[in-house]
Every structure is written in C-alpha cells, then in structure tokens.
C-alpha cells in the first residue's frame, strides 16, 4: 500500500469515528467524501481505500457491540435478512454496506477535487 493510500485509509476511519458520534449513519459517506477531497487517490484506490476503511470500521464496531452479547440479535437479524442465521455473514454484509456508501461518496469527492484543480 502506498503512502497516500494509507493516509486516506486512516483519515477516513478517524473522520468516520468522530462524525458518527453526532451524525446519522451517513457520516461514513461524509468521511469518504471529505478524505477524497483532501487526500486524493488514483484509479480504483479512489473507491477501494475508503471502501475497506469503512468496511473495517463497521465490522470492528459491530463485533465490539455484539460479541459481548454472544451475537444474540445478530443471529436473528441474519435470519431476517435471509443470511441463514450466520452472524458473521451479517457482519460482513454490514461492512460491505458501509464500505459501499463511503466508496461511492469518495468517487464524488474525487471528481470535485479534480474540478477544484487539486
């Protein structure tokens, strides 16, 4: 991983962590967007770096919240969302959903940063 990638990755997570304390779930979109504005990446990294950053953030957060409760609800929600009752699959889906949101908004951020001449 190149240095800008690492910086973007870390900044995205830190931003998401801070913003999520007072913004709704779309704080991760803001995080992806803002870090793309200021820490511009190239090619597929534009999407995938924030994608994996938020995927990691949401996966870790979900595990931290749920593991203390033996994934009791996670198992049920996994049934509800047709994931066969597997809590780990639900955790993965959670990460992908968060990552997707952040990655897509990062694409927008990147386009704006290009426009701004960065």
């Amino acid at each position, binding site marked *: 991983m190149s240095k800008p990638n690492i910086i973007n990755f870390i900044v995205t997570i830190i931003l998401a962590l801070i913003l999520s304390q007072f913004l709704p779930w779309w704080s991760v979109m803001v995080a992806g967007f803002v870090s793309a504005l200021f820490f511009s990446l190239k090619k597929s990294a534009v999407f995938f770096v924030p994608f994996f950053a938020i995927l990691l953030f949401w996966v870790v957060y979900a595990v931290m919240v749920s593991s203390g*409760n033996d994934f009791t609800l996670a198992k049920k929600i996994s049934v509800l969302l047709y994931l066969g009752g597997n809590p780990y699959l639900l955790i993965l889906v959670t990460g992908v959903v968060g990552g997707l949101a952040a990655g897509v908004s990062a694409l927008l951020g990147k386009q704006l940063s290009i426009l701004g001449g960065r």
Partner: protein
Amino acid sequence: MKYIKLITTLVLTLVVFYCLNTKLGSIPPIGKFLDPVSGVWQNDTNEVIDGNVTIKGLSAPVTIHYDEHLIPHVFAQNDADLYKAQGYITAKHRLWQMEFQTHAAAGRLSEIVGENAIDYDRRERRRGMAYGAEKALEKMKDDPEAIAFLEAYRDGVNAYIESLDTKSIPVEFKLLDYKPEPWTIKKTALLLMYMTKMLAGGDDDLEYTNVLRKFGQERFDLLFPDFFDVNDPVIPKETDWSFIDTEKTKTPRSELPLDTIRETIEKPHPDNGSNNWAVSGAKSATGNPILANDPHLSLNIPSIWFVMQLSTPNHKTMGATLPGALGVISGFNEHIAWGETNATRDVLDWYKIEFKDDTRTQYKHDKQWKNTSVRVESIKVRGAQTVIDSVIYTHHGPVTYDHNFKSDNERAGYAMKWVGHIGGNNQRPFLALNKAKNYDDYVDALKTYTAPAQNFVFASTEGDIALWIQGLFPNKWEGQGKFLMDGSNPDHDWQSFIPQAFNAHVKNPERGFVSSANQHPVDESYPFYVFNDGYETYRNRVINSFFSSKKKFSVDDFKALHNNNYNLKAAELLPHMYAHMEDSGLTPDEEKLLEELKGWDFYNDIDKVGPSIWRAWWHALYPMIWDEFDSEDEALTSPFTYQAIYLLKHHPEDPFMDILDTPEKETANDLFLKSFKEAATYLTEWKAKHGDYNWGDFKGTYVGHLLQGLPAFSRFDLPIGGDANIVNATSKNHGPSWRMIVEMSSPPKALGIYPGGQSGNPGSTYYDNFIDDWAAGNYHELNFMQSDTATSDIISTQTLTPSSNE
C-alpha cells in the same frame, strides 16, 4: 468530461444514499439499519437495570428490584408514583408492543405498515373501536382519581420515550423505520377495547340468520340448541336463584328480518378462553385455599403479559399485567388471589337499518325517521394517500355493513349493538382488586366492571373461595340477539340490563371448589336468557371430575391439571367410530393405522401418534358432515363440535350426513370410513414430507412475533402436548398464555410462567427465556418480596428519583 463524471458520481452517490436510507418493501433502510453506531447492532444487548434514573413529577424515589427472571419488584411511596413507575418500567421493556397493540386497536396499522393494513384498519374503524375507547374515557372522567393514575402511567411511559435516541429505540422501530409517538390515556382505553374485542367481540348472529333462513327453525334448533344434552356449568346446578326478583324481558310478538348476508367481518380466535379454579381450605392438602388461572390466547412474543410486583406502604400486589393497562390483571396480594376466564356471553347484536333515502341522514325507528350521525374515519397510510371512510351511527351503534362495506344496498345496512360501545371504567375494578383484602372487597371491586365479561375466580387467606361472572349483560327476551334483529322495532332494542347483584356467582360451595373453563355459565334454572354462544364442553368436565376424584389437592395436583392432556372429545367419539365403521373396506395400510389409533389412551402427549391420527380423522370428518354449509353466496357457520358429535352418535341417518356431491345416500357410519381413508392418505403424504407424525411434530406449536409472526423473532416446534378443548389447551399457535398457581398462605406462595420472556428486545437473553420451561410444564416461583430490602435473589436494583429542580 470532468462535468459528466462529476454528475455521474453525484447521481450515483445520491442513489446509493437513497437506497440505503429508505425502507424498500419489507427491507429496512439498510444503511441506517446496519450502522453499528446507531442501527440495529446497538440493540444486541441486555437491558440496563441498575443505576439512577431521574423522572419528572415523582413525589419520592421509587425502588425497582429485578429478580433473576427480570421481574421488576416496584416499591413506591404512593399510588401515583407506583403507576408512573409501572408505565416507565413497562415501556422500558415493552414499548414497541404497547404502541403496536394500541395502533391495532385504533385501526391505525396502515400508518406503520402501509397499504396492506387498510382492510384491517377499516374493519376496526367500522367496529367502532376508537368510538368505544372514547366512550370509556367519558365514563372514567367520573373517577378523577383513576384519571390521575392513568395520567401518571402516561407520564411514566412518556418519560421513557423521551429518554430514547436513535440508538436506543427498540428493534422493531428500526426495522419498520418509524418513531414512537407519545402515550396518551386514550391508548390505555384502546388497549382495554383490544381485550374487549378479543374476548367479547365475537358473535354469529348473521351466520345464524342465514342458517335459519336456509334450513328452517326446527333444523336450526337441532344444530344449535340453547343447551347441549350435557351441561356442567360454571355456577353449580344446585344453585338457588330464588333471591332474584327481576324478571326476564317478555318476548315481543314480532318478526325477524331474514336477510341473506354474503360475508361478515373477521371474528376473534374461537379458542380464546381460559381455565381457572380454586379449592377451599378443606379440600387443600395444606389447609390453605389454592387458586389457579391460565388464560388461553394466541401465542405471541412479546407476550401479552408482563409480570410485576407493585407495592406501596399500603399494599403489595404481584402477577401478570397487560402492557398498557394499570395494575395487575391476574395475580395476588397479601390477602387475596384472583384470575379470569372469558365469560363468553352474547353482548354483540346486529340490527337491520332502513334509511329514508340515499343521503342516509335518517333511519326508521319506532315509526319515526330519526337522525343518523357520521363519524369520518381518516386512515393515514404510510407511503400512500389517506383513506377516508364515513361510518354512519344510529342509536344502536355503528352501521358496520353498508353499501360501502361488504353489502350493496344503498338504503339499508346492519348496525352493531355492542357492550364495548357503552363505555365503562374497566380500569378501576382491577385497581380495586389489587388492593382488596377479603371477599367483600372483591365483590365491591367487580361491581362496576362491564366488559369483556369474565369469570373472576377468587380465594383469600381468610379461607373464602368464590367465582363471580361479571360484566354488563342485557336482560334479553328469549331468543333475542341470536339472529339479525329489526332495527326499526323498539321491542328489539336491548330493554334493560341484568341487575349486577343478579349476575351468576357462587361463594364457598359445598363441593369445596369453584372452576370455570368457558363453559355454559348456568343451567336452565337461571332466570335470565342465556344461550349457547360457543361454550366449551370438554375442559370443564375434565376439570370438575378431577376435583371430584379425591378429597385433598396440592399445588402439584394443580400443576398436573394445567398440564393434563386428556382428550375427552376423542374419548367420546373414537370408541363409537371403532364400533360402527365398516372396516372391511380398509386396505392393509389403513388397517395398520387404525390399529395404531386403537392403542391410543386418549392423552395428547408429544411422543404419541394417536393424537395425530385422531386429528387427521376428525378434520376430514367434520367438513364431510357439513358440506351443506359450503357456500360462497352467504356467510354460514357449521355446528359446534359437541353437537356435531352428538348428531353422529344419536342421529346417524340424519339428512345432513349425506354428502350432496355423491349419488349415494351416506350415513354417519359411511362418513367414518370415507373420512378415515382421507385421513390415511393425508398422513401418508405428511409423513413423506415431514417424517414421523408424532403429536409434538405434527402439531408444531410455535410462539410468533407480534409483527406478522416474523420467523426471525419467533420460536418454532415447541415440544408441548395438549390441544384445543383439552385442559392443556395448547394448539398450534394458541394456548395457555400465562399459568399461575397461588397458595393462600400468609403471605401467599405463587408459581407463574408464560411462553415468552420479560424483555421485548429480541437481542436480550430475557426475550424468550421462559419458553422452554413453559413447554416442559415447569413453573417459576414468584418471589413475592415483603419489603424493599434487596435479598440475594435480586440481580439488580434501579432507583427512579424525582428531578430536583421542580
């Protein structure tokens, strides 16, 4: 190019945002829902049940001790604080259910779930549910203290709602993507209406009218007699009614309108009912009276019940509460215990209304045109336009059926007369029972109770046992309200009510026990008109013969009776069928099946196959008898099980036994063979698909989540025996929703359990932790705390404190 890319990514971002932030069909807004910071992950936790919580308007601190079952033991300094704390604590564990049930009662489910619920909501509006709740509130206003308690409860619930944020609202709100609205005292009235509908909202008047028109009076009376040939009533037969000095209303000379009614509104579950009983000290192994209650309702989770102890320095009460209502509903205090079964009386009638013209502003009554009124019901629908339904009201009640609803005549309709619309302060009697100290207090408490009529069983530490059948009952003329009546004839109106003191009751009977199981309340000697309106005929006889079988009974006997799986219905018919079926027509496989059945001892235990074969046979047989009742053009109802079996045994050649579609003329004995063959085929197919048909698997009892039985939040394939019409009345999704046994020692000792758990949060270990014990027939000892000092049985304590800046 730059701009095209910018716009593309902007659109893409917005689309992704929209899709992840919006509920699409039954899929929750997936980004919002799965966000671990504030979405559903935050509910994956047990509840916080310690620490201090500040609540506005409390006058003194309230202590709440939780025991190992998450049962809260509330200790308040006065009643207002007590009910405020009850509201807060109940909401804390059951908020979504409280909101959902009262929305259902009010016909407001479309606001939550959208267009699919419009039909449901219209029906509830046309039933006049909110109208009834408003009437009830009017009556309650005469009791300022009760209103003050309702308001305290409301404030308690709202204190909890205000404490919630995006993270902490219950799972179902996140799933359906909406927010709780503030609680109101009307919601408590709506919940009581919900119970009234469930337990006193059934009738078959319109179906009976069709049956009467189709088959004539004589045939009708054979199929639907006022009394069956056996009757073991709630109030023992030997009761002397000579103290009653009010006469039954005289039957007027008049005619009934014999209309053809195509379809009627959905009725409450026919198995809604219960058992209760009590033995006197003389009949009890310990010398203390013992009382039991088990209400049979749809098996839902979160459960309709929430167990609490409610205490002030003046009283301590414990038992099952109804989330949304105040006090304990089925329970005990230091002096008395009480419980309810449904009294099932005909308190809902229909009147044919003749309108003057298409404007329907006037209707005929007592040879005059009288004015109607209109209640405009606007049903808000999530994601769609509000539906407006104008319901016309007469002095009888709402004109439920008219050309806008299940009927097509512009100048006629059917109006509902229902005790649920009369209004009543049905919260007060429970508050009074909670504090009652003896028989007289119990009788006083019940006096003003109107609906849903219940058989209130009672036992006291003083040694009394009793049972009052309490509700507001019209004093009807012979036959009144069995069929559609003439809404223009004032003689058809309800003329008066049975004076409360003449409601059937029994205190300390010689036989040493009282019991009820939704059977006929009385025998023919009771001076008021009561007809068989779907009375149970099996559980009562098993219960009463059990209590006549020996001299003394213990708590263990009570447990055994709750869990008694004896199938009296099968025992009364099967031997007859064995003797009369022409079994030479059976294939070897069918013969084997019959032999298997013959080996059955009539107990519906989970490991037996007999109950499954019996069930399959009966389910094939019953509709064969009543094929005459298959009709799409008119709403009909076929006879009750007991009478069907009576006819099979005593009128085997009755024309009803014939199957109309066949050229032959069948008798009951032919039906036995035909239906057995059909059952055999069904069981073979079932076995191929699901494996062995032992009763537990065949029945497949489940407890379904309140929201359309969401499988993820429900519990399936519970290993429990019994069935409808059995003392252990557990059928597929219906049965003992609460089981309680109380021995009237000082203080009383009690056992209780229900198929659910105290927490409404599917993420809590307390969500469904009672279910396995319930299915196994086990009980939990209810820890009736005598002081607010925590003992070792207490897992956690929370204090509600008044806010200091008031």
